[in-house]
Structure formats: structure tokens, C-alpha cells
């Protein structure tokens, strides 16, 4: 975008290159990373495992969240039954022990899965910073295709190495379909 003297340039979120092939996106992501860019993101209409390595993404902590979600489900489910049956209202049912462990396992098993599943879904959504219906990338009209058949590489303006002219030239060298400004 060229801004003539005197005009206030719109705040820029970054520059975005558009590709029509997944291989080109992965190669572009790797080259951007090798060129020293760090505030990068890639967008694809389906999961691309190769991008994790190309962008050097950290492993998600989600499994731990799910583990502790499940553990809290076990403790909550079993604890509720123990507390209700042994402490709060002990009731002799056909001479069975107040602490009927084999029976209590079944609801505790279900609450384990229930809590772990909630942890997985809510954890994934929260870690991803969703819901976020308005994000700068949506300001690029072509980005509508990111959910069906196009691939995008974004270099954010806050990247220490970001320079409007140099970064644009770098992206254009990657042979994209086009390079767009992403307004903030």
C-alpha cells in the first residue's frame, strides 16, 4: 500500500501472502522462519502437520489440561458418592457396606470422561483465543477462501524484523498468488 505524504496510514497488522497449494505454503513458512521472522502464522483449510515443524510451533499443553480435567472428574464423582453415602446420610441398603466401591466406580468412570471431555473442548477453544469473531485477518477479502481452497502466510507487523518494503519483497519472492496488507 502506498501512502502519499500527509495521509495517515492505517494501522497495519501485517502482510499476508496467498497460495493455492499446501506445498507452497509449507515451503514459504519454512523460508520465512529461516529468514528470521518469528511472528508468523499460516492458515489452511485443513490441518497440515508439516506446518508445526516449519513454523516451529510449540507442542500444545492441552493433554495436561485434559488429564487434570479427568482426574478432577474421578475425584468429584467418587468423592460425591463417598461423602453422600458414608458421611452425609449413611443408609443401610440390604446390608451392603456404606462404602460400596464396585458400585461407585461406575458413576465415577462416567464423570471422569465427562470432565475430561469438557476440559478438552473448553481447553482447545480457550487456548485458541476463541470465540473471536473479529480478527484482523478477516479484513483481507481473499481470506474468505482460507476455509475452502486457499493457503495464507501472515507476517505480523510487530515482528522485530518486519519492514514494510523488505517484507513485502520477501513475500513476493515466494511466488504467491498475491500479497495483501492486513489492516489492524
Amino acid at each position, binding site marked *: 500500500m502506498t501512502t502519499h505524504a500527509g495521509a495517515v496510514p492505517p494501522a497495519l497488522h501485517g502482510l499476508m501472502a496467498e497460495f493455492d497449494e499446501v*506445498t*507452497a505454503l*509449507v515451503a514459504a513458512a*519454512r523460508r520465512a522462519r529461516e529468514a528470521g521472522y518469528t511472528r508468523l*502464522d*499460516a*492458515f*489452511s*483449510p*485443513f*490441518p*497440515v*502437520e*508439516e*506446518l*508445526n515443524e516449519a*513454523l516451529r*510451533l510449540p507442542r*500444545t499443553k*492441552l*493433554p495436561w489440561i*485434559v488429564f487434570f480435567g*479427568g482426574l478432577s472428574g474421578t475425584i468429584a*464423582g467418587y468423592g*460425591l*458418592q463417598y461423602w*453422600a*453415602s458414608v458421611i*452425609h*446420610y449413611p443408609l443401610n*441398603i440390604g446390608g*451392603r457396606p456404606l462404602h*460400596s466401591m464396585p458400585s461407585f466406580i*461406575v*458413576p465415577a*468412570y*462416567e464423570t471422569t*470422561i*465427562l470432565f*475430561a*471431555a*469438557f476440559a*478438552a*473442548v473448553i481447553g*482447545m*477453544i480457550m487456548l*485458541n483465543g*476463541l*470465540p*473471536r*469473531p*473479529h*480478527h484482523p485477518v478477516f479484513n483481507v477479502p481473499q*481470506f*474468505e*477462501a*482460507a*476455509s*475452502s*481452497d486457499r493457503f495464507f502466510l501472515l507476517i505480523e507487523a510487530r515482528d522485530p524484523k518486519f519492514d514494510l518494503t523488505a517484507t513485502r519483497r520477501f513475500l513476493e519472492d515466494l511466488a504467491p498468488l498475491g500479497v495483501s496488507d492486513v489492516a489492524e
Partner: protein
Amino acid sequence: MAGTPQDRQTDAPYPHPAVGVVTDDDRHVVGPGHDFTSISEKIAKVPLYRGILPAWLVGFVVAFAITMMLLFALTWLVIKGTGIWGVNIPVGWGFAIINFVWWIGIGHAGTLISAILLLFRQRWRMSISRFAEAMTIFAVMCAGIFPLMHTGRPWLAYWMLPYPNSMSLWPQFRSPLIWDVFAVSTYATVSILFWYVGLIPDLATMRDKAKNIWTKRAYGVVALGWRGSAMHWHRYETASLLLAGLATPLVLSVHTVVSFDFAVSLIPGWHATIFPPYFVAGAIYSGFAMVLTLAIPIRWYYGMEDFITMRHIQNMAKIMLATGLIVFYGYACEAFIAWYSASQWEGFLIANRTTGPYWYMYWTLILCNGLVPQLLWFKRVRTNIPLLFAIAIIVNIGMWLERYVIVVTSLARDFLPSSWGMYAGTMWDWMTYVGTLGLFVWLMFLFLRLLPMISMFEMRTIIPQSRVRDEHTGH
């Protein structure tokens, strides 16, 4: 749900084809010539651009009318009480439990397809998982109606939940019926979560493809602002895999707990250790029969033969055959144990089932569930769509009869002849049962109209263009 990249890597001898070339390997799970654009267009256009189709409208209206009959039957039940049903002493469990078990079982195939086949990295699962999961949720909704209304006072059903109350009372945690409350409510919740997570990227596609601003906003809200970022996909894939790992033991536990409703009692014919595996196999058997019952007309009417190919149809038929054989083994085992245990009650039970007043139910069940599905050994039968559709319907009927035989014959003639009695469903029982079929079909019609029936993002992962080629990545 998730098209894990590992799915793609399992095809080790993949020859890195040129873009757009579909190899023989893929021809089975997706029709030739598809690319990212055509997949999205073909699936998204059904809810977005095609409008209300005439046959859809007719089916929707008929199903809605039947759903209204369900509401009528349930309203009358609430006014008059459960006495309008055929249940009485000694058969206190009639249609309500038969239908509950039948519907819950049908749901199991959806979870098997979306969770267990994901763990086994079965790529053919991808095009049928979305509507199979929808089927699961709707089947569980239909199932839930029966025990709820069978309590007689459905407005007090929350008494089954552990909550602090003024009487300081708690549910009976030692009872399988309370285990059922936990199992089924967890199953319904996790199924909905799993389904929704699978929908998020597709809802984003719908948002981006919608022309009408309100349609766009509606899909936009439920898509949560999904933008397909690499880190988001990484967490998404992890979440999908973990949910599949959680749903697998869950689905096995649900019908196990349902079978405990019977097996933990002392009634002959119910008090059997084979019940949990036999029930789970029966559930998957009936579920695949229902998936086929739905998939065959859907793929025909919406022209989805490219995505739901003969390989899908055949695989489902094979699973039906395999689980049907397990179920048949269960029947044989019941008869064997009746003889081997030398228990006069068990022996009488089998004699009563096979030659007693409900003999025709039992033998029809053997015909439907045991004999007819043996035709599936033949490839000619598995590839004959009308015949396969008929077999799926027969298995659905057979599985309903199985639950009828289990519930009714054991209760109708237990230990003392003085307490014997006969059971038959009343008009209200039938209206409620047929009504839930209407509700189920009505919900399926709504689903087909409003949501992408096939997972678009997963379908993208199984075409050759989704593979990252080596010549570019090597450096």
C-alpha cells in the same frame, strides 16, 4: 472427526502423484476428479444454495406430523398416567425400556465411526462420520424420552440427579438405574461436544461461503471466529484425538451399563455375564443398520455417491455382518448356558422363549438378526443397494424384537406360575414409539437442511492435493 496427518502417512507406498491425479487407492473413498473447491462447493451448496427441495419438504412435513403425534401421546400420558401404556405387574418394563435400549444402541454406531475408527485411522470414516454422529445425538434424544416418561412424573426426574435438597436424600448410587443416568447423560453430552468440535471448521466454511448477511452471521457466531491458523489446527487435532480416546471407552461403557439394568437383577434370562459384550455388539449392529438406512437414501437423493462410495457401503455391510455374528453367538450362548447351568429357571426360560406364547417373536428375531444378514457374505448382495437397504431395515426390526424378547418374556413368566401374565403394547405405546421415529427423522431433515452433512475439512485431507510434496520441502 479429525483428519490427522497420520491418516495420510499410513499410505506408505504413496507415489507422490501429480496434483489432481486421483490414484486407485483413493478412488474408493472419494470419487475421481475432486479438488478442494469442488468438495466445499458440493457439500456446502446443499444448505446454502439449493433452497428447499420438494422431496425434502414432503419428508419434513410428514415427519413433523408424526412428531406432533408423539407430543399428543405424551401429553395424554401426562394427563392420564402410565396406566394408558400396556405395562402392569408382572411386566412392568414394556415398550419404554425396549425402545430406550433400541434407540441408545442405534446411537452407538455414530460414536464408533467418529471415535473408534479415528483411533484406527480408517479414512473411509470421514464422509459418513458427520451424519452418523448427528444420528447418535438424535437417537439418544429419542431414547431419553422413554425412561423420563416411564417415571410417571417426568417433572420430578431431577430427583435422579445428586443435588443438595431439603430432605438430605441422595440417589441410590448402588443401583444400575442411577448408573444409567450418569452413563446416558454423559454420553449425550460428550456426543454433542464431539459433534460440535467436528463442525467448527466447517461452520467457518459455511460462514465464508454464505451470501446472505444473516446466514453469514448465524454461521459466524457458531463458528466462533475459526480462521484455520496452524497453531489452532494443532490444538484442534490434539483435542479431536483426545475426545476420540475418551469417547471410545465411553461408548463401550454406555451399553454395558444399560445391560447392567438387566444383568444385575436376578430374573432368569437377564442375570447373565454375557450381557455387556452382547449388548455392545448388538448396539453397534443396530447402529450400522440405521446408518445404512440413512446413508443409502441420502447419498442417492443428494447425489453424494462421490463421497459415500461403494467402499463405504460395503464396509458398513461387513461391520454389520461381523457384529451380527457376535450377537448370534450371544443367542447361542444363552441357550447353551441354560442347559449347561442345569438351572431349571434358565432351562424354562429358553423353552418359554422358543415355544411359549411369544415364540413367534423369538423366531422372527432369529430370522431377522441371525439368518437374513448371512446374505452379506456375498459381494453381490453387499453391492446391491436396494437389497442392502432391505437387509438394514430387517436388522433394525430384528434388534427391536431382540429387546422385546429380552424384556417381555423374562418378566411375563418368572419363577411362580401364579404371578405370570401377558403383555402387549397399547395404542399409546405404538403412538409413542412411532412418534419417536418421526422425531428422529424430523431432526435428520433439519440437520440436512442447516448443516454440512459431510465433514468438508476431513474430505480435503483425503485427496492427493492435501499432501505436502517432498521436492519443495527438502532443502
